[in-house]
């Protein structure tokens, strides 16, 4: 196995260009090392951990920028994130165990592109962008298009993720991330639901609703028909319940050893209903109308 520790992004990108599919990028290593032990060793390992200045959380003119090497724990303990992006904080907080949060990076979680990746559904509803470097230059890839399948992203084998760019949501919006797993903590999500809800000026209707679903399709997805059912509507219980049912239909879960597809749909419905009510309350201080 060839092993490299590039010191610059340029060096890393040229290694990826050279080795292509054979190369594996490693940062925190919480997934890569396990794969190396239990599956196959890659023929080339590119350790980007030594590239300086890729771990940061910065506010920048309506955006929050998170460096690709930022450990999840940094996000969890950042007062800036907690204040400006409570949704991202919530996802970081529910991420695996403390030990893993200390080691795992946000870039690794995104590039791993696991359908159940804890940060992905929240980043999807935040309509974040992945800033990536290719040998020909930089590209900004919206999260809505980034994921192609489990472990597959638009970065391909040659792109290096450098930053996550997140537009700050409107001040009066409310958000929530709900995760369901048998053990609660220290467990892979059976279903993850992220909700970002912006009420209209009157505080009666949902102006903008975004619902992200994790672990119920080959990639994290938006529950588009559920969002549509709510947009511009007064937040009444029947409407919320209808949206939750639509979210369950939007999901495309599989049956595996963790849960049946049927159960995952039930949970999508329950968590969407709960998430919408909680997000609405966070935004308006009010319960959903009966």
């Amino acid at each position, binding site marked *: 196995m060839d092993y490299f520790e590039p010191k610059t992004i340029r060096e890393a990108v040229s290694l990826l260009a050279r080795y292509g599919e054979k190369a594996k990028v490693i940062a925190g290593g919480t997934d890569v090392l396990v794969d190396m032990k239990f599956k196959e060793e890659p023929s080339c390992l590119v350790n980007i951990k030594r590239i300086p200045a890729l771990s940061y959380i910065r506010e920048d003119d309506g955006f929050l920028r998170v460096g690709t090497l930022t450990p999840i724990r940094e996000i969890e303990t950042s007062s800036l994130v907690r204040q400006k992006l409570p949704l991202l904080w919530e996802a970081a907080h529910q991420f695996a165990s403390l030990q893993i949060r200390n080691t795992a990076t946000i870039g690794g979680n995104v590039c791993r592109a696991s359908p159940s990746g804890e940060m992905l559904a929240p980043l999807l509803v935040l309509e974040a962008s992945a800033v990536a470097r290719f040998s020909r230059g930089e590209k900004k890839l919206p999260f809505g298009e980034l994921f192609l399948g489990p472990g597959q992203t638009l970065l391909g084998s040659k792109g290096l993720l450098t930053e996550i760019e997140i537009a700050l949501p409107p001040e009066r919006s409310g958000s929530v991330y709900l995760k369901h797993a*048998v053990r609660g903590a220290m*467990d892979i999500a059976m279903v993850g639901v992220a909700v970002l809800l912006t009420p209209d000026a009157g505080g009666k209707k949902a102006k903008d609703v975004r619902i992200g679903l994790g672990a119920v399709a080959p990639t994290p997805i938006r529950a588009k028909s559920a969002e549509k059912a709510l947009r511009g509507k007064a937040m009444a219980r029947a409407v919320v319940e209808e949206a939750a049912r639509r979210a369950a239909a939007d999901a495309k879960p599989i049956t595996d050893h*963790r*849960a049946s597809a049927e159960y995952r749909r039930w949970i999508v419905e329950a968590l969407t209903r709960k998430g919408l009510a909680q997000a609405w309350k966070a935004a308006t201080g009010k319960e959903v109308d009966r």
Partner: protein
Amino acid sequence: MAKAEYSVLGTSIPRMGGVERVAGAGIYGIDLVLPDAVRGGVLRSQYAHATIKSIDTSEAESLPGVYAVVTAEDAPDVKYGRTSNDRYMLARGKVRYMGDPVAAVAADSEATLKKALKKIKVEYEPLPVVLDAEAAMKADAPALHEEIPLPANLPKDTRVKNVCGYSTLHVGDPDRAMAEADLVVEETYETKMVHPQYLEPRIAATRHEADGRLTVWVNAQAPFGVRSEVSKLLKIPISGIRVLVTEIGGGFGGKATGTHSSAGLEPICALLAIKAKKPVMMVLDKAEETVSTTVRAPVKVWIQTGVNKDGTIVARKAKLIFDAGAYSGFGALAGSRCTQMLAGWYRTPNAHVDGYIVYTNKQVCGPVRGPGGPQAAFPVESHMDSIAAKLGMDPVEFRLKNIPKPGERIAGVPKLRDVSLGETIRVAAEKIGWGKVKLEKNQGVGIATGSWIEGSGPGGGAVVKINEDGTAAVLIGKVDYGTAPRFGIPMIVAEELGIPTDDVTVLNVDTDASPWDAGTVGSRSTLVAGNAARLAAIDARNQLLRMAAKQLEASSDDLEIKDRQIRVKGTPVKALALAAVATAAHNEIGEVIGRGYFDSKAVEAEEKEKGSSPPFTSHAAIVEVDPDTGNVKILKYVAVHDVGFVIHPQAVEGQIEGATAMSIGQALCEQVLFDDKGKTLNPTFVDYLMPTWNMIPKIETVLIKGYPGAGPYGTKGAGEIGCVPPPAAIANAICNAVGVRLTSLPLSPENVLRAIREQKGVEP
């Protein structure tokens, strides 16, 4: 019971060896470093059922760094088994589960080993696979062991297949009593396979010594069992084998039955070491452990009970299908215990139970903590609540109505001496706030009881040697994996010798030096080694007192040992230092050596005459069910136990809490899952869900007193019984919370929500 006037007994001394464990000292099997050792590993079957057409090891053998490759051809044609010799250490002609050892390699590194295992070419001819025990009994099922006859005790005309054990119980006239009962309740229940999942991986290391003997290092609970089985399988005399036990990081019965539990790891390791002419060390990884080693067997139970309107149980009938796995292993024994327990531990004058222990193409049943107990108590104690509901009776009242009296019998106990069952129920009900606690919506309270075996079984000895400084070294055959050897045993010896516990060293088992023992199993450490060590300490004390008597000019009867001094009772000034007497002994008899043993037959005879007092327990729980997700949260948990006299309260509470937590795991989330080919789907801790601390409630343990058992000073076994009631206690609380009776484990969110939706009639 002896009066509580002990100096050490009844206190909670720090666990001997506790600091090393917490500080991460390299003391476990996996830390063992043998000079010049090479690495051993096993090639396991990739089919759950297949004929082996051929094995070609030539490519593996020619790989640089490979020291030995072994298959069944390298070993004597000898089978092993506990109740039936049905298994080879390395598969011969056939494999019966996906984990069966087929070949093994010794190599210079882990990497070479992996490479070599891949280069072994095995040609299989797949056979039909049967994973369900009930299906395996049917005529059209594939035969797993054609050469093994059906059990001789099967009733005539029983048309079954693949049955490796049959157990039955018959009391009174159950047919008639059932027909005459006011109410008959009938249900079926099911439990799933769980793995004991001790954290420390299993190891074996072997060195072929210059004198031709074999030294085998194991982290097994039954080192003498390992010795006898290695001897038998490799045709080496017992005297040619020495087994040394490393410290053990958890076993829970999973490391119990000699080589069975480890799927032949020790004899395979020995075979490799002989062929490689090098010491060989083997370590199983977690996934390999889950797919190959012994498990708690899944069961299917049909249970029927007849009661009178006033709540008196008049009859019980039950049928058990106990899934032994690919080989008989411990199946017939655990299945038999499960069969007995299905008759319950309440007064049941008429009963009939049939227990079929059945081969399937899965992991083999081992004696996992309370073998057969949780599998019986989940149906029995869930069923008790179902009956109470049909009678319109309170579950506590219904249970109290049917408590057996001293002198009466329950299944497995011909004559009861005294019965703590009722008191445990009353205390548990009071502690949980039965009938008083205010429950919110979706909250419920449940209770379940349990019992466990006590008394007779194999004997065991102890030797107490007195060093010249008055300290003591103790040899017993029980190993320390968190049980008596470093809690109760040093306390007993210290108490009887009048020395501090720090002056007592309990040696780890070395089969060349330690007294023989059947294994650290069956909640019997304190019963066997405790009784033996007590008698050995008394023997040593009497020898010391006799020697001191001459010098002190007193009768040895008037002497006592206190604070490292031998002194005349009531006249403390007339004293000799214990060390001086122990040193002086060198000129007379050499070292003072006390000997004691646990006489199983004597205990059996006494119990036959006076009856026995088995341990009883009641657990009560308050749970909250999330009606949206099916998630069950335990809000409060009470475990009331009668364990007789308590030597070390903290150790006993620790055992009970540990067993309860383990069983809560089986109740709420644990199970080994398979695809239809018999492949384990969740072999690692990522997918095999054990409860983490956030799922385990604070377990409030209450030890009730006044019912002495057969152990030293009146103790009873405490290591396993805590596993018995939890699944039923939680299922009963769920039923109380949401009105749904769950009849299959685990009580996982999906299973609970499905049951709630089915009850509501929600379209799926």
